[in-house]
């Protein structure tokens, strides 16, 4: 069995690992300037694409799958993973697509349509237009009816793009235009709709897996720590839910999945506030944060995806699924937390990811790797598992402190500040918390960092030059890199 991965970076590495464990052949595809990336080197075979944009090119991707004689394609997340045309094109060529059916992708790709299905299945949702709004006037009139704040969402949206909150009619006019433009750019579909915006909610999502016999769930993840609608910390189980609520949201998720005849892996997203859940959308693909669910349930979601695609069945029973301990994940990005979280591009000079008890790192970089400018600057996902949430937090902090990365700036200082935050420790973080508290958290992060630098500066001042440690060959090489880097600045 030959499986092609229509993706790159850490998720390509993750999928190659699953393919290898199952004894199949892994095939990577890569843009010209990524031929040395770890995922390319790790795969059994690799094929070059024509450009970085090829990951979004249905025709080129199908052609390369044919050329590579792939039996199946795993799309990962993002790129073409939710594209029904790609799914259909593969099917037409007799290639198995690891994921839901094209028909389901089409239905779920339309957020408004998905909401209608959920309502029909008796799952609660937030008030919204049940058609895309055709004009600014229509949007304003609807917002007036349900009351502000409202959120403008792309009908074909996802990943935090094409979403804008508006608290006044003036804001709504601007928000609608920006969301539509962003949506057009990202998804080629500028339709937007208006939904009631709930303040201070928890973002709860349920992992589902479906095969020929039905829909299974792997309980929920809590992804409430977000910045600009992008998830930063994810954990499982949610520290905010009671056991009754945990079962209730899982059953809602199964109900929605059954209503759309869902197949393979997906995630059903909800907002949670005051004991109530509101259905948001279904993501018909593997999620970035699937690892935390794997850590607490022991199920390898990627292997299950492949099993479902090839044999039509998962390898577990719902009865087997128990929540065991607690897992937390942080996304380490190449961005500068001290100047507005702008992407920090450049070459990774040194790289030593953490390890030890209860730590899992899913990454796709190595020393000498240059973070490309045209993709999301994710370096690694660091996950921890503990017997309880407290142990998971302690382990994650320990791991982040062990992480050696130089050459690019990372958001690790922000994660360390967040893991020390009282509201986070109490498990009470709601969406928008970061926006509200950002100034305070950033100040704390800065002071902590400057204290370290102050101590380092004292030590550097007192350490005579000749007393420097003898340079190893590696550090000599590194010195040349870092001199080059300084000259470039």
């Amino acid at each position: 069995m030959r499986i092609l991965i229509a993706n790159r970076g850490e998720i390509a590495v993750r999928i190659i690992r699953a393919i290898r464990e199952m004894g199949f052949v892994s095939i990577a595809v890569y843009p010209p300037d990524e031929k040395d990336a770890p995922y390319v080197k790790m795969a059994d075979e690799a094929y070059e694409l024509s450009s970085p944009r090829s990951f979004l090119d249905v025709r080129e991707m199908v052609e390369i799958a044919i050329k590579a004689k792939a039996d199946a394609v795993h799309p990962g997340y993002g790129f073409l993973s939710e594209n029904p045309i790609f799914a259909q094109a593969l099917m037409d060529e007799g290639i198995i697509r690891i994921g839901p059916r094209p028909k389901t992708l089409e239905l779920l790709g339309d957020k408004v349509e998905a909401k209608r299905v959920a309502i029909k299945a008796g799952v609660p949702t937030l008030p919204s237009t049940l058609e895309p709004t055709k004009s600014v006037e229509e949007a304003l009139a609807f917002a007036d009816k349900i009351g502000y704040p409202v959120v403008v969402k792309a009908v074909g949206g996802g990943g935090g793009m094409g979403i804008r909150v508006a608290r006044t009619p003036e804001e709504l006019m601007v928000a609608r235009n920006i969301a539509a433009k962003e949506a057009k750019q990202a998804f080629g579909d500028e339709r937007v709709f208006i939904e009631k915006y709930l303040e201070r909610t928890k973002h709860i999502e349920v992992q589902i897996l479906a095969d020929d016999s039905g829909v299974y769930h792997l309980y929920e993840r809590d992804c409430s720590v977000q910045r600009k609608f992008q998830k930063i910390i994810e954990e499982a189980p949610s520290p905010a839910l009671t056991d009754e609520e945990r079962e209730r949201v899982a059953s809602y998720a199964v109900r929605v999945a059954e209503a759309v005849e869902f197949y393979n892996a997906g995630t059903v997203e909800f907002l949670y506030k005051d004991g109530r859940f509101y259905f948001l959308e279904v993501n018909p693909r593997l999620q970035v944060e699937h690892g935390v669910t794997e850590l607490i349930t022991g199920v390898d979601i990627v292997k299950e995806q492949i099993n479902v695609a090839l044999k039509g069945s998962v390898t577990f029973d719902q009865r087997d699924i128990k929540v065991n301990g607690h897992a937390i994940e942080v996304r380490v990005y190449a961005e500068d937390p001290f100047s507005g979280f702008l992407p920090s591009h450049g070459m990774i000079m040194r790289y030593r990811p953490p390890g030890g008890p209860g730590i899992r790192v899913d990454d796709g970089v190595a020393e000498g790797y240059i973070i490309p400018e045209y993709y999301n600057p994710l370096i690694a996902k660091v996950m921890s598992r503990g017997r309880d949430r407290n142990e998971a937090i302690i382990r994650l902090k320990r791991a982040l402190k062990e992480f050696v990365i130089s050459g690019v700036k990372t958001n690790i200082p922000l994660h360390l500040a967040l893991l020390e935050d009282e509201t986070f420790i109490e498990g009470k973080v709601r969406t928008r918390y970061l926006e509200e508290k950002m100034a305070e958290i950033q100040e704390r992060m800065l002071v902590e960092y400057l204290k370290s630098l102050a101590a380092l500066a004292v030590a550097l001042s007192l350490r005579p030059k000749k007393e420097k440690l003898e340079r190893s060959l590696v550090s000599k090489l590194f010195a040349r890199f870092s001199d080059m880097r300084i000259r470039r600045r």
Partner: protein
Amino acid sequence: MRRSFEINGFKVEVELKDGKGKVRFDNKEFDVELKDRKGDKFLVSVSGENVLVRFVDDYTALINGRFLSFYVIERPLIKRFDGRASKMETMVPKEFLVAPIAGRVTDVLVKSGHKVSKGDTLVVLESMKMLIEVKSDRNGKVEEVLVKRGDVVTKGQPLIKFSKDEK
């Protein structure tokens, strides 16, 4: 003893006498004291908090259990106005709103003469496939718009010039 560095992009000034003194950053200052030293291991009190620094190599230190990669540029104490120093501190006059990131201008929402308030979106940039709203950092009046839709701008490039008189 006075030393001046740039560590990881932060300007630092150290002033020490008999192991005691101050460390200054652009807008923060800490009282410091060397408590103990053994070879490449330093125990430094920073604002009364003990911080243990161990050099792993010339580019990595273990600071209170955390590996910190660093690069250091030694800075002369008296600022010399040579080409190098001026390049490191390219100053943009206060009346400009600059691009926070390199990207392409997808929208300009104001014209010269417009009055704007702090927080208003003035320019929208596209970068990393995201739209970034560049917001006004003040209440004021736009004197000149320096970019147009479709322009490619670099980080730090002025986008809007504000009138000097109205703040």
